[in-house]
Every structure is written in C-alpha cells, then in structure tokens.
C-alpha cells in the first residue's frame, strides 16, 4: 500500500487531463487529436489513456500529438510517430499484425468452435436417443398387446 501511495504521489501532480490551454483553435484538428489521444496509453500510469491522465508525461504526449497534427501529419502518421518514440506499449488498440492475430482471432475462432461443438453434440444426442432398448421394446409390445 505504501509503495502504491509513493507511486501515486509521484505521478499525481495536480495537472488535470486535457487542459484548456492545450486545445487547438481548429475544431476539426482538435477532434482528431482527441480521437488519437484517447487510444494512447499514458506510459507511466497504471492503466489510463493520455486523454484521461493527470500525469505530466500525458500532457507532453497530448501536446506532441497536436504539434504533429498542426504540422500536417495524418492520424496514422501521428500515431506512428508516438510508437517510434515509446514503442508499441503506447497503443491501447493493439495492432492486428503478427502474433496479435492470435488475440484478435481468439474470439471468432472460439465462437465457431463453440457453435460447432454445440450443434454436433445436440445432433448426436438426438440420434443416439432415438432407438429403444430391448427392455423398452418388450414393454412397448406388452402395452400394445393389452
């Protein structure tokens, strides 16, 4: 707990998520910046986007993203610029490449498997339960005779 408090003390300098002075005059550009920063991780925080974080570095990243956009970068270029500086760790939206395919395909693959298993076992059960056992046949015959 004490360690946590120390960490919180270090990062929780009283800065406050997106500051009024950071906001760009061009609303279209500002909207793009917000979309980008919402998906970037505050790299020193425990699990916050730079958009929500109070940490100094989050503010720096927010400003850097805006600088890139003002300089004419596309969203993808601005994001790549951040990845080059801080590594893939900064992306809250993991890229759909390489080993991450396992992550992204896990859901659909499991769903297909689940549905397949469900349908097969339901069908098999229906078939196996249809024929009557000998005892049941005898009982049926007896009932019919009565």
């Amino acid at each position: 707990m004490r360690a946590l408090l120390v960490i919180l003390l270090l990062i929780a300098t009283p800065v406050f998520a997106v500051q009024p002075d950071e906001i760009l005059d061009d609303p279209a550009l500002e909207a793009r910046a917000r979309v980008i920063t919402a998906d970037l991780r505050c790299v020193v925080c425990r699990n916050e986007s730079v958009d929500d974080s109070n940490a100094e570095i989050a503010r720096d990243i927010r400003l850097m993203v805006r600088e890139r956009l003002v300089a004419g970068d596309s969203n993808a270029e601005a994001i790549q610029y951040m990845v080059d500086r801080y590594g893939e760790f900064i992306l809250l939206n993991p890229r759909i490449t390489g080993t991450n395919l396992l992550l992204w395909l896990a859901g659909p693959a499991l769903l297909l498997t689940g549905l397949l298993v469900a349908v097969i076992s339901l069908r098999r059960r229906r078939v196996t339960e249809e024929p009557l056992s000998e005892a049941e046949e005898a009982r049926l015959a007896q009932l019919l005779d009565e």
Partner: protein
Amino acid sequence: MIIELGHYALILAFAVSIVQTIVPLVGAQKGWADWMAAANPLASLQFVLIALSFGALTYAFVTSDFSVALVVNNSHTLKPMLYKISGVWGNHEGSLLLWVLIVALFGACAAWFGGNLPVSLQARVLAVQGSIGAAFLSFMLLTSNPFLRSAFPPFDGTDLNPLLQDPGLAFHPPFLYLGYVGLSMAFSFAVAALIEGKVDAAWGRWVRPWTLAAWVFLTIGIALGSWWAYYELGWGGFWFWDPVENASFMPWLFATALLHSAIVVEKRESLKAWTILLAILGFGFSLMGTFIVRSGVITSVHAFASDPERGVYILAIFAFFTGGALTLFALRGAALEAKGVFGLISRESALVLNNVLLAVSSFVVFVGTMWPLVSELAFGRVLSVGPPFFNAAFTPFMVALAVILPVGAILPWKRGNLRRALRSMWGVALLAISLGALTWVLQTGGSMLAPIGLALGVWLVAGTLKDLWMRGGRNGVTARLRRIARLPRADWGKALAHGGLGITIFAVAAMMGWATEDIRVATIGQSFEHGGYTITLTDVRREQGPNYVTSMAYVDIHRDGALVAQLNPEKRVYPAAGMPTTEAAIDYGFTRDLYLALGDPQDGGGWALRTYIKPFANWLWGGAIIMALGGLISLTDRRYRVAAGARKAPANATPAE
C-alpha cells in the same frame, strides 16, 4: 488484547476449517451419519470465529489503534467514522478478511437453510466450502496477516487513499465479494455432485438460488463500482476495461450463463455436464480475478498489494481448486447422463446459444486481459490492450445476445417453431428498427452507436412486454392482466432482468454516442453556453473539510432564464496522504446528467472548468438495478419456498434466502 483475541480467533477458524473439510467428506464416503452431522456445527463455528476476528479488526480501526500496522497504513484519527469502518476492507489484508468472512457466511447459510438437502450432499458441499475457507485462511495467516503490531506506534496514521474515502468503498467491495464468493457455493455444489456422481433436477433446483443470489450481488457490486468511477474520477467514465474490472466482469458473465443453464437442468434434466463445468469455471474466474487484483502481474489502476509471493500463493490456490475440480470433471463428467431430449429449435437450444455467447465473450475478455503478459513472455512483444480492443471484440457478442434474446425467450421447451416465434415478434422488431432509424435521422447522421443501442434496447424491452402479454392468454384485457399479474415470480424476474438489460444496453450506447463535453477557462462572473444551458462560475472559495482542504467552485446553471441547478465542483487536497482529488458535481436528471469538474487556477486568471452532458446516465445503473431486482424477485419464487419446506411441515416453509 482484543487484537490478539481476533488473531487467535482467525487461527482457530483455520483449524476448524480443516476439520470441516476432512470429517464430513470422510463421513459421506463411509456413510457415517455422525461424521456427516459434524459439518453443520463446524460451519457455524467457523463463521462465528471469523466474525469475531473481523469485529476485532473493525474495533482497531474505529478506535484508531495505531499499534496495529494495518491501521497505521490505512487510517487517520481525523477520518470520518464511515471511512474508518470501510477502511477495514480498503486494503489487501482487511479485504481478504472480508472475503473469508463471506466464504464462511455462505457455508453457514448452507448449514442453516440447507435442511432439505440430502445429508451426504450437504456434508460434501460444506466440506468443499470448508476447504476454500482453509485455503484462504492459511493464505492470510502466512502472507497477509491483518493483526500484525508495529513496535513503535506512531501518533497518527498515514490515512486511507483519498480516492477510497467515499461511500462507494463502504458498499462496492462487500457486494462484489458477496457475488464472487457466492459463486463458491455453486462450485461446492458442483464438486459435491461430481463426488456424489449424481446430478438431477433437484440438484438444479438447489444450486440455482445460490447462483441467483451471487449473481444479484455481483450485478449490484459491479453497478456500484461503475457509478463510483463515474462520479469520482472527474470525467464521467463508467467502464474502463481495466484488468480489475474485467476480473469482476468475467465471473458475472459466467454466473449469467450458469443461471440460464441451471434452468435447463432443473426443468429438463439436460445440459448437466455443461452446467457443472460452468459452475467450476465461474468460481475459477473469481479466483483468477483475485490473482489479477492482488498479484500485481498485470498493471491496473486498482491493484493493491502487488507482491509476487502473495501472487504465487493465490496462483497455487487457483490451480488447486480449478485444476482439481476440472480433473474430477474429466473423470466423472461423462457419467452425468442427460435425460431430456430436445430439438435444434427449442428453448434449450436457445439457452445453449446464450451460454456459448456468454462463455466465449468472457474468454475474449480473459484473453484481452492476459494478452500483454502472454505477448511479453512468449513473443517478447511489449504492448497494451485497452478499451478499443474490448469495444471491438466484445461488443458484437452482446449485440448477438440481445438480438436472439426475445425470440429465444418465447420458444417452447423441447421442440419449437422458429417461424411462429419470429412471427409473434415481428411487430416488436419493426418498432425497434424504425425507432432506431428515426433516431439516426434526427441526430443527422454521425455515429451509428446510439441508434443501434436504442433499437436493441427497444427490442429487448418491448419484446419482454410482448412475451408477458402473450402469456396472459387470449381473453379480454382485464382477464389477461389478471393472468399476467398471477404469473409465477420467476417469470416476473425473467421479464425484469431482460428488460433491465435492454435499458442498460441503450444507456451505454447513448452515453458513448451522445455525451458532449466542454473544456475551457472560466473566469469568475462570466457565463458560457453548453448544450442549451447557461453556465456561470460565480465564485471559488477555499474551505476546510474534516481531513482535507478544498477549493470549492460555485456554479449556477440556467436554462431559458430559469435556474436549473447550483453545483459545487471541488478540488481537494488531503494533507495526510499528500494527494489531490477532484470531486465532480453532478445534477442528476431523468434524461441527462449535468457533470461539472473543476481544474486548476490559470495563470491569466480564471479556473479550468469541464462541463459534460451525459445523456441517460441514470438509465445505465437503473437498468442494472432492475436486473438485480429481477433476480431478487425470481429468488422469492414459490418453488424455492416449497422446496425448502418439502421435508418439514408446511408451516416451516420459510424462504431459504
């Protein structure tokens, strides 16, 4: 002295839990009635001992006994009484004590109210429950003892994390734990049934109320946590896909699946093996959640007590119970014979589909939560998995679930006719789609999120109403209403839970699609417009709270010249913990919340002020509460009361919960 008594009671409880694990289990195996009968008093005793221990720790917090290390680290003499008490579980050791208290409480409840269970089943259930208690009690005593003294007691404590000094802490963890740990009952029943080798309709009927109760608590606990985050963190987020949130959400998804599959066991004696598996996985994920929260292997905003040694111990507990139960399942599961046969189009199949969607979506959350760890260890690729992944990968499952729900809910058991079911829901579907389309036109394009959410919400709520209406028969309106009013409570529970889900889905989409924000420097005395409201910062004053100092803003909000609300967003500093917090001020409304958060004073004068309009925010938690209410009403259904009194005189037919 009281502290030592509490400590001693905890050690005694550990000893009792070991006896509770061994004696009834052996008794049930050998058929010794007296050994089996020992389970009940042992379960009660274990609960009483842990309750004493919990009382002792609470006493230490209430009296600010700074000779106890835990109190020093988490309390302060100036802290309000409510937070002194909730501070008991606002830390690793104390929350574990609450955890074992609830494990013992559920065990004791099974002893007190389980009189109608077969003796051997009850003995085995209590033995398994006892073993869970033993595992966690040993964990506490060996690695996380709350009663450790400090040699040199300081004059005052270092205070509780200010973010936790909130009524939310008083209620959110206890409810969550009641839910988490409640799933241990379903687990104990599943393992006991595997040992017994018998699962029948009666088993389904016994296990369902426990699961239902756990589900209700978990629903309330998660909703409270979400609401707490909403008003406390200062920007109105309600769900962050944080690993710790996921840790509570995965068991909830499994509990929901289990709830539905247990119906099939109870009514149709089918899906037995699957239900047992769900019960094991549900509690398994509870344990996995405990591991995630307390080991520190995964970074989260919530993580407390990141300690590898503790992590390894919890991992061992997880491996023992989940692995052991799954092994038992592999050995015995095949012997569980299904009796009820059903066609591919039937209520049973619809519930299977529900289960597949819920279970797979839960695994998606699991994979996303663990992926950063796996990716780093296996591929050396350091990365993050955040909200964008979960929104994209998880949401489709919930949409699919919502789409099939109203149709599945009206399919008959055994063999249904899909065309007939679709025909009776045709009007509802048309209503939902046209309202969604209308909304999309009215909001003049933009994100499809909110219109789709609205359509799904209408589809669920109206579909539920249509279902109720059809169950009223074909006579006149009054006769119908009378019949609907007399429907079993389980049916009402179902209707409320499904309707509540619709409301929550709509609210989530509305919050994500329609929320607006305004960030600016507000100078005192000047007004600005946002979303049709005129907002005026009239003053900012420094004020003194019991254990903090605050800058409190005074904000007037007008609409069309009339005063709507006066709000006081604050920025607080807690000197003892040396930490600032923002206290948002919210004007709660039926169709929107006005949400204000105060930032820093600016160099050129004025204050940073954030204004949010959160549409239908209250509907989100309202929907969750309606869902929980549905669970509660279902819990009071006649058949549980009847079952509870079946072996005794009818006069004793009191509800089991």
